């Protein structure tokens, strides 16, 4: 089993009203250091694949097809063997 951590962000240059509102809230709490906040999505996926390469190929497809909308979003991801498999193999989790 593999574990994919997908981050979907809004494209640069687009207005993110949620980020603006959260930035305003942080500043009103006294965090005057805050100059900008952007809100994105974090999606975690457990998937079966014969190796990491295959897992990457599948996750790339998922991002293109469904998880991100290329008109307004960009995506990135990290893929690792899931903790469960690592425990069985007696290995320490590795990046």
């Amino acid at each position, binding site marked *: 089993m593999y574990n994919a951590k997908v981050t979907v962000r809004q494209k640069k240059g*687009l*207005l993110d*009203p949620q980020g603006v509102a959260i930035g305003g809230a942080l500043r009103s709490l006294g965090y005057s250091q805050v100059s900008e906040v952007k809100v994105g999505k974090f999606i975690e996926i457990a998937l079966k694949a014969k190796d990491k390469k295959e897992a990457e190929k599948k996750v790339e497809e998922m991002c293109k097809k*469904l998880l991100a909308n290329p*008109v*307004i979003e960009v995506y990135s991801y990290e893929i690792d063997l899931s903790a469960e498999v690592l425990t069985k193999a007696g290995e320490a989790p590795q990046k």
Partner: protein
Amino acid sequence: MKFGVVVFPGSNCDYDCYNAVKRVFKQPVEFIWHAGSKLDHFDCIILPGGFSYGDYLRTGAIARFSNIMDSVIRFARAGGLVIGICNGFQILTEAGLLPGALQRNKSLKFLCKYVHLRCESNKTPFTNKFKKGQVVRIPIAHGEGNFTVDEKTLKEIENNKQVIFRYCDEKGRVSDASNPNGSMAGIAGICNKKRNVLGMMPHPERCCEALFGSEDGKLIFRSILRKD
């Protein structure tokens, strides 16, 4: 003319569309469950408003992959009339039948109110009964209607006269003040290049009877039916 209203889990304007077609315009109309696939015997498909699949991930993102959408895409490519209203518009952009995307309203508020729209082109099967530049009053009800597209595509759709409706004031003036949701260029509705697919955030089906405060929505249905 035979109409089909697609019903997704979470659609909630399906009955409004059905009612407008059936009771106001006395036309044959059927609901089409999203799991179906047959559209051969319809002349016009309506993708209604609502919150298909709870708006999870992005509005329209999951509905776009429901079984019926392959048929809707084929139907549209063959020249059939498709109109997406509100969530229907969002689904059409996700499906790639219309350019752009609908983002969260600039104000972050869900907006439910009457707005004024200016008809930018009456050269579509959905607007042929409008006068060019005609101002109509049609309600909106959405949290994510902020039309966004890259600069190049925006130029393209402006040049091709694919912008069909813009938010305006009662005199037809388009400005930031008349733009309820932050849409680029005040865009409220667009069509595809072939002009047989229309997406719009405002709800014409909600204003086809005087009781509802406006009958301006009738112009869209009269255009589709080519009826005065």
